[in-house]
């Protein structure tokens, strides 16, 4: 590969129009004209779509024909096409270190559309800075780091399980960490699922069994990731496992302990509609298939210990910390529903007959707290009229400004399932818009609309209350289409609550992944990198990244697994060699740099500082800390920064 070192700079500048995205604001012809005059520039051209095949070929041709030893591309952003042009430059026979990307779209045309003249000037300044920097860029060999061929999946819902099984099937060992006592996530709480109306448990339990039995999957339940160290290909994680107090291998599911236990608490599995003991089996198909003690409510009375025929219970079990080394991490911690308590106007928490959508799912399940009967929870009488309130908390600046995406569909589903159970019942669905964009979704919605007894009412409910002496609820609202105020007597009101991410800020900050303004995990690019995070080797899957139904969660999980595989099938990752470098002549071994480095990448040996390449992340903190200027950051030296500043200031 031809370098540029020592030679006189022969730099080519390529300015992209991006259709009118850039050229509509920046005067690209003027840019080309001006940058041609910059010292070291021997070639400059513009093209309508630089990232197209033709655009890339222009770069390759120019490198060859004009004997360029440096390339500056001024276009969108490095996160979008940085790699595209790096490849093209390499194709042309230059090192990628002889190329600089300048963002004149996101940083110029898209933010300065109100001032074309100044936008053009700014584009020129930016290019001038890159040209100035490029003159001193050196070529370095990449640093290689061995890859730990193992993956960590956080969260054992449908997304996490899918990702884990995909990886495991590809022969990659997987560590699956689940916070609750069982895997299954939200999906195991559901009755039937749209758009096919098949049984959620029947779909998900084979997947759970696969996880339980897969030789390549190590499952830690009641566990949390408490520490993450390292980098793409090489992460050290610490996992805290809370005591289960029941031996998974010994427990025979006889249930004697449960009968003996005197402590009863609301059952979270059906959102408090039923009760469970302090020692309990979360649900029949739980994985691992063993009882568990709820440490928070257990009084340590010991009755269960005496009842257990196989001595499976150990009340003194302690939490433990497990360390694992993995090459990649997939975050799939899912979602929670928006707390219905925040909507007191709908009577949740005041009237028993107002339930949230997850509770309603549990009422439909034959094994659920109402044995599959749709009844008034206040008196057990059949629910002949049910009102569903969509967008309960969603699309509302007072609650969640975004659309939760799944509630239109699950409400249509719930209304249809209700009608199957109560053929003479009436269902009213209050909605703003019905969002049914998906394969088979419109058809599903249509089916709900056509079901006799289901009435879609386009409007909002203002309040739900019980009139004195009435055993039903009064629902007041409006039908915007007829312009009439409506009042419905209902036996049951179901709140189609929105969904919120379940991403512990602490976990996010340990992983160093970004979250969006609502707390959902932030992908790198909504279209082109939807499962990648800013952190190398860390991917996201499922509802933690944004509202999603099961199909989408599964698709994204498989995508995340594929991305992890791409990384884990390699023997090593190549690392940018743009790290810190010591000038041994100048270094006097003071050690300030070593104490500054957050990665312990610097050691003082024989009175001189030494950088361990594999550890250095290239932050440059040590460089600016060194009192004698002995430390430099490759291709971002003090001289280069100063030259960039000068170039910006100099033009015109």
């Amino acid at each position, binding site marked *: 590969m031809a370098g540029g070192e020592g030679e006189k700079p022969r730099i080519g500048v390529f300015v992209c129009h991006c259709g009118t995205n850039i050229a509509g604001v920046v005067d690209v012809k003027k840019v080309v004209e001006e940058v041609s005059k910059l010292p070291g520039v021997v070639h400059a051209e513009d093209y309508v779509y630089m990232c197209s095949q033709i655009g890339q070929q222009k770069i390759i041709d120019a490198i060859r024909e004009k004997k360029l030893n440096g390339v500056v591309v001024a276009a969108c952003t490095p996160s979008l096409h940085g790699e595209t042009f790096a490849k093209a430059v390499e194709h042309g026979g230059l090192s990628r270190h002889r190329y600089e990307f300048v963002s004149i779209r996101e940083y110029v045309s898209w933010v300065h559309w109100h001032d074309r003249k100044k936008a053009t000037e700014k584009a020129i300044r930016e290019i001038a800075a890159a040209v100035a920097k490029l003159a001193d860029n050196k070529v370095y060999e990449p640093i290689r780091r061995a890859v730990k061929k193992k993956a960590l999946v956080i969260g054992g819902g449908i997304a996490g399980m899918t990702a884990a099984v995909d990886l495991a099937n590809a022969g990659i060992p997987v560590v699956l960490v689940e916070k609750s006592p069982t895997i299954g996530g939200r999906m195991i709480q559901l009755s039937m699922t749209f758009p096919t109306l098949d049984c959620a448990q029947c779909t998900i339990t084979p997947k759970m069994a696969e996880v339980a039995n897969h030789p390549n999957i190590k499952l830690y339940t009641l566990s949390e990731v408490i520490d993450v160290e390292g980098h793409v290909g090489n992460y050290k994680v610490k996992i805290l496992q809370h005591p289960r107090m029941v031996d998974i291998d010994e427990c025979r599911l006889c249930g004697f302990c449960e009968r003996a236990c005197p402590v009863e608490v609301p059952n979270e599995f059906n959102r408090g509609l039923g009760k469970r003991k302090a020692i309990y089996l979360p649900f029949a198909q739980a994985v691992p298939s063993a009882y568990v003690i709820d440490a928070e409510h257990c009084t340590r009375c010991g009755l269960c210990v005496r009842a257990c025929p196989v001595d499976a219970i150990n009340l003194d079990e302690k939490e433990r910390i497990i360390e694992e080394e993995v090459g990649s991490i997939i975050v799939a911690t899912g979602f929670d529903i928006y707390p219905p308590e925040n909507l007191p*106007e709908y009577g949740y928490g005041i009237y028993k007959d107002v339930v949230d959508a997850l509770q309603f799912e549990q009422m439909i399940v034959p094994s659920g707290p109402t044995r599959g009967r749709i009844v008034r929870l206040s008196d057990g009488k059949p629910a002949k009229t049910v009102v569903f309130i969509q*967008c309960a908390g969603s*699309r*509302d*600046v*007072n*609650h969640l400004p975004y659309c939760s995406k799944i509630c239109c569909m699950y409400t249509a589903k719930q209304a249809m399932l209700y009608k199957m159970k109560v053929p003479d019942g009436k269902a009213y669905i209050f909605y*703003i*818009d019905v969002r049914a964009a998906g394969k088979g979704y419109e058809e599903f919605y249509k089916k709900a609309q056509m079901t006799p007894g289901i009435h879609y009412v*386009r*409007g*909002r*409910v*203002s*309040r739900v209350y019980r009139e004195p002496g009435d055993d039903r609820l009064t629902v*007041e*609202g*409006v*039908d*915007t289409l007829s*312009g009439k*105020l409506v009042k419905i007597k209902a036996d049951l009101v179901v709140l189609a609550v929105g969904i919120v991410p379940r991403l512990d800020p602490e976990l996010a900050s340990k992983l160093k992944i970004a979250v969006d303004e609502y707390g959902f995990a932030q992908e790198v690019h909504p279209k082109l990198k939807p499962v990648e995070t800013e952190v190398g080797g860390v991917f996201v899957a499922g509802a933690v990244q944004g509202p999603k139904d099961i199909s989408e969660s599964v698709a994204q999980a498989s995508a995340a697994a594929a991305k992890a595989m791409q990384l884990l099938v390699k023997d090593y990752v190549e690392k940018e060699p743009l790290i810190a470098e010591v000038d041994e002549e100048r270094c006097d071994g003071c050690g300030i740099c070593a104490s500054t480095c957050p990665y312990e990448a610097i050691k003082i040996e024989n009175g001189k500082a030494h950088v361990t390449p594999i550890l250095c992340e290239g932050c440059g903190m040590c460089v600016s800390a060194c009192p004698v200027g002995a430390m430099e950051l490759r291709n971002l030296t003090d001289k280069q920064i100063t030259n960039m500043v000068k170039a910006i200031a100099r033009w015109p």
Partner: protein
Amino acid sequence: MDMDGFVEEVVRISGRNPYLCYQCGMCSAVCPVAQYMDILPHQIIRLVQMGDPAVLESDAIWVCISCMACVDRCPRDVGPGIIIDALRQFKLRRGAEKYDYFQVPELGEAPSLALVAASRKLTG
């Protein structure tokens, strides 16, 4: 009465953006006096969006009592009650008055604040 540009003026007086409204109907549902209106609050906002001056002739804009129920609950923070007040202002600033002191039967008995409020709302 010259209606040209009435939407712009209503937007300016209210300081609110009627185009944010997605016609959910929450304002009409919560309005404590909606059943006395000839058109409902969400329809008032719709007519403003469409620039239809018929909205100024509705009785509903005089029925609204600025109770702020819709303003607090509107999921798009449109402030329907504030826009309705601006519609009244638009008319009042052009001389319309909705309130005749001589109509009041129990002037002596009602608390002064009822009279002050009514005259502010209905006579500008």
